[in-house]
């Protein structure tokens, strides 16, 4: 079993407090790592309640605010749906994932996880032509 930490990094160099996730396998594809992260954060939200979801991707029917995504009223967020959105966002360059300072580009890339592996999520901006 290994303990990996997740860090959300912004483009001003600030980093959120890391949080940790216990993972039993030592090798996992990136796809699965993202899924675990999302399931964990949704579980925490559902346990804690409140009308603001602070997670990787925006749930349906919510409004984006400074502190997170505001639900119209407190409700459970669906982890499977969030995970699908997160993977979809990844494939559209919604964010990039760095594993110990190396970007991983493919969802199927198998990561070697060890104690202290740091997985960084770096947010990007959706673009269109003008």
């Amino acid at each position: 079993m290994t303990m990996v930490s997740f860090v959300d990094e912004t483009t001003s160099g600030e980093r959120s407090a890391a949080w940790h996730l216990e993972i039993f396998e030592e090798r996992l594809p990136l796809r699965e790592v993202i899924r675990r992260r999302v399931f964990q954060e949704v579980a925490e939200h559902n346990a804690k309640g409140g009308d603001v979801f602070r997670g990787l991707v925006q749930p349906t029917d919510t409004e984006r605010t400074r502190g997170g995504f505001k639900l119209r009223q407190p409700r459970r967020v669906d982890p499977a749906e969030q995970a699908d959105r997160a993977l979809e966002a990844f494939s559209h360059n919604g964010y990039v994932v760095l594993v110990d300072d190396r970007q991983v580009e493919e969802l199927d890339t198998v990561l070697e996880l060890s104690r202290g592996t740091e997985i960084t999520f770096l947010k990007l901006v959706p673009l269109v032509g003008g």
Partner: protein
Amino acid sequence: MPTPLDDRAKAMAELARRGDIESLADEVVAYAAADNDRGRRGSRVANALRLVPAGRGPELLMALLERCCLVTDAEQRQVINQLLETLVKPYSTTGTPDAAEVALAFAARHTAYFGGAEQRHMAELLLEAGRPVPLEVVAMMRRAVAHGYWGSVAALKPFLARLDAPALNPGEAWADRALTDVGSLDPAETTRWHALFRHAATATSAKPSQKWETAGRGLLDGLTEPGDRLRSWLTLVGRPRTVRLNRTQWEQDINESLDPYNATPLRGLVWLASFLPEHPETPRVLGALVETSLRKVAGIGPRSPKIANAGVYALSRIPSENALAQIARLAARVTFKGTLKELNAALDARAAALGLSRDEVEELAVPAYGLTEAGRRVEHFGAASATLDATSGTVTVTWQNSAGKVVKSVPASVRSEHPEQLAEFKAAVKDVEKMLSAQAERLDRQFLGQRVWQFEAWRSRYLDHPLVGTLARRLIWLVDDVPCAYGDGVLRTHEDKEIAAGESVRLWHPIGREVAEVLAWRGWLEDRRVTQPFKQAHRELYLLTAAEENTRLYSNRYAAHILRQHQFHALAAARGWRNRLRLMVDDEYEPATRELPQWGLRAEFWIEGIGDDWGADTTESGAYLRLATDQVRFYPINAPEHYAHAGGGGYEQWVHQEAEPTEPVPLAEVPPLVLSEVLRDVDLFVGVASVGNDPTWQDGGPDGRFREYWASYSFGELSGTAQTRREMLERLVPRLAIAERATVDGRFLVVRGDLRTYKIHLGSGNILMSPNDQYLCIVPKQSTGSSTGNVFLPFDGDRVLAVILSKALMLAKDTQITDPTITQQLRR
């Protein structure tokens, strides 16, 4: 040949004959939107409308008026208003009570309406016929008097005095509720409340007189639970009007503002609320009232400074800690000059009464809101409990049910058995959130405040303060000139040496510190994953440049930019600058000014309105849309003011004929910290408000006049912020998959794609393509919130950097881009 408009007139005539009022009114509104010769065909429509069956005229009038109140386009509204006037005219001249009733009901749906004498005459017709004058009509007449409209005052004032109408105007949520609430009480109590309202309506001075207060206290004593009622009404102030009013040609939109008559009784009620026994909710209600009264409405400005100031006065009368806390919070928040002055006066008065300095009062005014150790509060509701945690910068609440299990929402037992305590707790959570952001802003301003604290006082008011501590423990301080920060329960240096105590404490600023020290602190904070409440370790520095040594008395660093005036104005106020919106009129204006009393200086940013085409270069009300920027200068704080004409022509000091104007302070003599912080503000103004940020201005805006400016802004030299950005990229790019293809080169991040090579400007994020420096337009997608690509990370950080990175990743794989609006540009 019949024109489409002829057809429309025919269709209207048919609807009128059939008596289909609703469809007819819809058709008229649609016609007014399509009519492009400003109502000259109005007579044809008016003729059609006359075909409405006898007796249904009033119905049509009101149906059309109802729709007109909702029309936002000024020209369309003008067409409908002209029709309305021809429709209402017969009723206002017939001279029967029935007709008068219709005409007055129509007039009542306006802020005020022409002809006070005629209105009085019609109202008297009603009274003679034994019919009441509706309160809505009285309300309109009162607004006309309050506003001093069209000589109506003399005609209406004595008439209004004769009527025995309730002293509040209906049409606003708070007044409607007050009238309904009071109407449902037993008759004696109702009478006592109306007497109180009448007294409130005499609140015409800036502050209550002794006599007014005594009479008010007497009236309050006769009431049961006046506090709860007053508070519940005051929370409704500022809601949109319950009855929308119609706007005539030159009127601003009153529907988003406050009733000009009601402002007086409202002021009275606000004063009265402060005479009541203390209640924890009162300061909160008053604080919110001050904020909502200062909200700006286009064309009007702050909704009601009068009410805001009454709120401040009421807060200053309440001796509780909560009231002082609201004043301190508002003083850090409010930017409207008049109210800010009142707030400062209230704080100074409190300081004088306590024998403390103004700064100390502000510090002592920060309430703990029941937080115990720095940033936590546990509230018990029977066996269940809630934990409020503010330690990391955001406020979170965790609930435990009576079995001690963490639950996602408020436990049912708490809802049913402790509703009041729950409401109070929720309000306290909101208070904590608001106070934290106000305190972060206050601390940010202390860089220029030059505050020095005595260690023990600082320890209790900052480091160990339950609320402020959550901020102070994430900042770097100088204890006896040794930089330190809070980690693992103690103060320590970046080498982790513990600091137990000291004499004096100051806020650390990177200017004048060794580069190694600054970097060490950045590393220390990163290692401990500390997010600072505002930029301190990563604060941008602005040092005197060689060019500024040459110009000596002024900085040209931010000259010759084109800014959006309204955005600039709002930013300037938020950063403590004094500024006035420049109108295209014959008037003189001071430059944007920041006063720095602690340094005996004032900073000036010279700006002028730009353009001379009313409408294209101004708003509807004549304010310039854009400003041109010039020098930044420093003067002794008491130097004579500078003035320049609205449209430019240079600033001059107004001094007596024989006197010499005061010279600016040479930049080299301005303390580096002051220079840096002031230029940081100006960089922010230019960086945010410049039209250069707007990719749709590639054509140079109106008539292409600003093309050269736009091009140089978009690809010119880097600002301080962009330099920081460059350092970030140098650190970040090697970690990315595109490391092989991307390099930072001068002002650009150069990305090698398969089709072309791209230069992304680090200042603006704009892109030039090789080989010919062709502009490539890619912009952030305006997400409506529903798309799946919406990713959230806890900080928004530097949006331009996020844009640059996103563009780089996209362009490194330029053969995979599918968006046709981009590919067309690449292959052109």
